[in-house]
């Protein structure tokens, strides 16, 4: 085995992706300045997408520590790098909340609202409280992510096992905070787009989507790092097989939660709840509505059902790419219908959103990967992970 992990190992980010990130970002900023509703929605979709990768990485790293898992330690630097993108998502989302809060329909008052929760909603969705909460969520996530990553990198230098046990404690408490903050953030930033509508399972649905897409991104990253050299002697078919199993499982989990939300609303058939699905199933939206299930569940489920495809990197990468497209579409379906009419828009703003997502994710994750050795050199579980058998 070659000496793992020197900084030069991770190849430089191709210029194309930097151009994509800047081009997509500038286009959307221009749209926001011009006051375009579609650019607003496209920016939120892109922000939520990249945020999902960061939160998914944070969750995965925490889960490894809490469960004492060794199998993924060999490529833990990938989810760590994903978690290190959280400050960028913070800037993207806070910028929207600070400079264009009027995109939220409740910003100018909740006049039409009534019902038992009206007073609570008015208080909850008061603008200063809304912004303060957003800042608090990001502080929690960024502090957690940077503390975990910092301990892990200190361990590279001194090999002290106490860094691992500190991270276990940090992850255990962090996961509790994670559950609360991610739930509230999904209510605040997405569900409040339709302040009279609510779904109690919405946060779980958000979590399912973000973790599924983070797994897909992780698969693409580790296969790429394997092909390009840094993880060549480190990543084995057993690691891939387990990542494939997780992607399969969380695709099914996403579908399960998606259907739980849909069926309860469909069955109860209460007008203030069904509006959400009426908007999203009419006309051409209905096609995208079905496509969402196809990309996020049917394709990964059918392709990854048997064992061999879960072990073949070229198939896994394609399924992961489908899931990532599905994630963008899922967010698009949550956010865009509120801003537009009966025809799903697809043009400059939406393309810019996709280009920004792809460019920003790649640039940010690779930049974070280059900051540390590609494997946690002195992690006590590393040796076990390198010889992992599923």
């Amino acid at each position, binding site marked *: 085995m070659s000496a793992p992990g020197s900084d030069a190992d991770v190849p430089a980010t191709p210029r194309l992706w930097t151009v994509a990130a800047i081009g997509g970002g500038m286009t959307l900023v221009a749209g926001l300045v011009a006051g375009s509703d579609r650019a607003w929605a496209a920016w939120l979709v892109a922000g939520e997408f990249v945020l999902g990768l960061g939160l998914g990485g944070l969750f995965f790293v925490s889960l490894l520590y809490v469960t004492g898992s060794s199998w993924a330690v060999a490529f833990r630097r990938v989810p760590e790098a994903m978690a290190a993108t959280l400050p960028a998502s913070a800037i993207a989302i806070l910028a929207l909340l600070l400079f264009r809060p009027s995109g939220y329909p409740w910003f100018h008052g909740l006049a039409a609202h009534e019902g038992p929760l009206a007073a609570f909603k008015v208080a909850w969705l008061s603008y200063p409280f809304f912004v303060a909460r957003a800042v608090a969520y990001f502080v929690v996530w960024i502090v957690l992510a940077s503390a975990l990553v910092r301990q892990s990198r200190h361990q590279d230098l001194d090999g002290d096992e106490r860094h691992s046990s500190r991270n276990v404690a940090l992850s255990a408490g962090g996961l509790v905070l994670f559950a609360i903050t991610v739930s509230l953030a999904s209510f605040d930033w997405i569900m409040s787009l339709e302040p009279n509508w609510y779904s109690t399972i919405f946060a779980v649905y958000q979590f399912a989507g973000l973790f599924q897409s983070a797994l897909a991104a992780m698969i693409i990253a580790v296969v790429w790092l394997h092909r390009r050299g840094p993880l060549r002697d480190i990543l084995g078919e057993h690691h891939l097989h387990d990542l494939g199993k997780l992607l399969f499982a969380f695709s099914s989990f996403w579908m399960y939660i998606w*259907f739980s939300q*849909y*069926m309860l609303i*469909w*069955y109860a*058939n209460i007008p203030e709840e069904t509006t959400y699905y009426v908007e999203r199933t009419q006309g051409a939206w209905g096609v995208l509505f079905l496509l969402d299930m196809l990309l996020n569940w049917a394709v990964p489920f059918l392709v990854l*059902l*048997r*064992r061999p495809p879960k072990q073949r990197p070229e198939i896994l990468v394609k399924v992961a790419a489908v899931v990532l497209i599905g994630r963008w579409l899922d967010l698009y379906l949550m956010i865009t219908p509120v801003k537009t009419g009966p025809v799903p828009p697809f043009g400059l703003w939406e393309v810019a959103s996709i280009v920004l997502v792809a460019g920003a994710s790649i640039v940010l994750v690779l930049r974070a990967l280059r900051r540390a050795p590609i494997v946690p050199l002195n992690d006590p579980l590393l040796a076990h992970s390198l010889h992992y*058998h*599923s």
Partner: protein
Amino acid sequence: MRTLVGVFEREEDILQATDAARRSGLTILDVYTPYAVHGLDRAMALQPSRLPWVCFLLGLFGATAKVWFEYWTTASSWAIDVGGKPWNSLPAFVPVTFEVMVLFAGVSTVIAFFLVAGLRPWRKAVLVHPRVTDDRFVLLLEQTDAAFDVTQVSRLLERHHVVHIEEREMQEVP
């Protein structure tokens, strides 16, 4: 059938001995371990299990049968209006269909495994070695013909730290 029983003390040894026995073209009747040893299926060159197919097909059957049954009860045989929903309300069928699929797939896989493995309550357990359910690993080889050289095979097993070798006549593989 004339067999050669090799007893090992360590997981790594049984893995390597099995691998070596397969490579030298010996007939491996079975390998006995106190717990599931990862990689043993590959060392024995076992074909992938066919149980997943039983699981998949019976699961598919369960789901299909249940959708048909729900359709028949609510829309065809005795149509009932529930809350103004269409009689043939597919989303309402999904949870039960899912459960029945899991039930069929799970139970049928276990039953198929019992049948194939010959596992039944009145079966007399014949252990190839008394400690194989505790801390010993056993490789069972068949002495296929006169070309089977016990000395040579013993030497091969000794390279992998076999602790006990014994020739045994058997009616069937336990």
